[in-house]
């Protein structure tokens, strides 16, 4: 049960996006946990930079001690205020406008922002989603830090009001925060897949085992047992290339199609079976006939 739920969970985050070319692309919405940890990382990075800048400015100030101090102090004060403002509003803007569409925290958690309608992610959208961040994160944070423990009905009411924004992602299917809603964006997982080896390159795919010289030819009846789901499971087993799994799967297939399982040549047998099953299913596919799994 718990395993079934774990398997199903990513599906609830799957969305289909239609590009302007009319191609549908599957997307996975970033989990709320990933987004929360990305935010934590970003706040930590921002805080560290802010502290570093503050310390550097204080250091410069002490270095200038004595000579023209008031002028220097004023200038550094201006630099400090502007720097703090820029970090607060510029940090997210700068990184999300970049080619990765992600702040360092998002990059580390493997997520990025994208336009919800499949079109171009506009500069205005990035500005909009980051201005809203103010009431979602900074305001509740400052509020909590400044008035913690004071109590009072008005305090609680305003805290509840701010909490609504903080918890906004939990109230909608796409885990959007208020800024995403306003800007027409959402946060998705960054896909990372390597191109695997083609499956039908070897001699075994043509039905001949290199090790034993045996020929594997499967008939119509034997190949019609399985569907696409089984084919792709077999593909995964072959790519993982775990000897025990190979043996187990080969035995299962032999039992199913009524062959007597020989041992030692499982991989060649499976490769041959895979290639011939795929050839058959793809041929049917070209004629518009699809077989989803062994039950259909």
């Amino acid at each position, binding site marked *: 049960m718990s395993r079934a739920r774990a398997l199903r969970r990513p599906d609830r985050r799957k969305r289909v996006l239609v590009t302007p070319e009319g191609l549908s692309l599957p997307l996975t919405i970033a989990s709320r946990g990933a987004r929360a940890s990305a935010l934590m990382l970003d706040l930590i990075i921002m805080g560290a930079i802010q502290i570093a800048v503050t310390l550097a400015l204080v250091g410069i100030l002490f270095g200038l001690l004595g000579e023209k101090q008031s002028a220097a102090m004023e200038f550094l004060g201006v630099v400090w205020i502007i720097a703090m403002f820029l970090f607060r509003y510029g940090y997210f803007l700068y990184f999300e406008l970049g080619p990765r569409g992600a702040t360092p925290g998002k990059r580390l958690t493997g997520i990025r922002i994208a336009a919800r309608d499949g079109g171009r992610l506009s500069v205005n959208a990035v*500005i909009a989603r980051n201005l809203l961040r103010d009431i979602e994160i900074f305001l509740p944070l400052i509020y909590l830090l400044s008035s913690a423990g004071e109590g009072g009905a008005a305090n609680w009411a305003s805290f509840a009001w701010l909490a609504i924004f903080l918890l906004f992602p939990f109230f909608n299917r796409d885990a959007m925060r208020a800024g995403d809603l306003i800007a027409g964006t959402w946060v998705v997982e960054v896909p990372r897949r390597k191109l*695997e080896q083609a*499956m039908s390159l070897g001699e075994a795919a043509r039905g001949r085992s290199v090790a034993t010289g045996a020929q594997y030819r499967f008939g119509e009846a034997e190949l019609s047992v399985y569907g696409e789901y089984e084919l792709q499971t077999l593909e995964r087993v072959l790519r993982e290339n775990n000897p025990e799994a190979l043996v187990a799967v080969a035995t299962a297939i032999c039992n199913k199609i009524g062959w007597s399982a020989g041992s030692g040549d499982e991989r060649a047998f499976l490769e041959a079976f895979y290639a011939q099953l795929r050839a058959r299913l793809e041929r049917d596919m070209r004629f518009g006939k699809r077989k989803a799994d062994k039950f259909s």
Partner: protein
Amino acid sequence: MAITALFRSKPIEELPDIEAAALRSDRFRLEREQDWKRLEAILKRMESGRLRKLPDEDLLELPVLYRTAASSLAIARETSLDAATLAYLESLVQRAWFQVYGPRSSLIGWLRRFFGGGWSASVRELWLEICIALAVMVAGTIVGWVLAARDEAWYYSLVPTEFADTRVPGASREVLEKSLSGVEKIDGLSFFSAFLFSNNAKVAILAFALGFAFGIPSLMLLMQNLATLGAMLWLFSQAGLTLDFAAWLSIHGTTELFAILLAGAAGLHIGRSMAFPGNRSVVAAAAESGQRAAQVMAGVVLMLVVAALLESFARQLVTDTGMRLAIGGTMLALWLAYFFAFRRSPGDIGE
């Protein structure tokens, strides 16, 4: 040509033997694999931010390779059952989509569009909200005045104490007049202006962001800020300094209050389009108005920079009432002319 370029960067790559593949769908894949890998290499470099090092020919080919990969994916979905290849293609096309439809932001280009009509066009589209926000601000000023005139206690609750220092009900005309004159010390002005800007920008961003809750909090924020102003106006008018106070305020106030007006209107715009989305879905309406309002907000932050500079330098250095009014009036005329008289044909404005 595509293949030779790949070999330059990765000479060890070997051309696969296409005929060796037993399956037709694998042959399809092997024939196109080189283009996919080339696209992947370009994407990898773009994602790592090394855009400048990317040769022009790669950049020009990105859309072509993107469409090739997209059509490969469309065909593979109908002809191939190779789950790993399909997953790879999906992720490749998605990554390419991110780049091809990513923010087209040379910052310079965006700024040119922004100043060359995008900003003023967005402001004009908000005309209804601007009228509402203006009415609320005027009402707020009147309320502040009336409340303070009725009962002096209201003055203290409307005007924050740190603001008020010597400017309290019952203060003499001289004291009040002095508070309007420039400070003698010129030191500290730039610090003051940076502080004012940072503070005002936060208020403006708040007024915008609060629009999300159907605009009501935005209006309340405007009301409250302007009630403070109304109470102070009452105080100075008691001492017969109405015009001097107006001049003192207008030098930066025309810019600053205009900016806050726009911020409130932007917030209201979002709230209104979410409450009354028309034929669109609420979510689509929010996104559309949010992006328009964001453009206005980017300008508001800029206006606040100007306001802070005027407030800390011009106001403290120019002490003549007439000059102050002239500067304030000129600024207001400039903003109005820029927003409402400066129009371009819609075709010139991108995005």
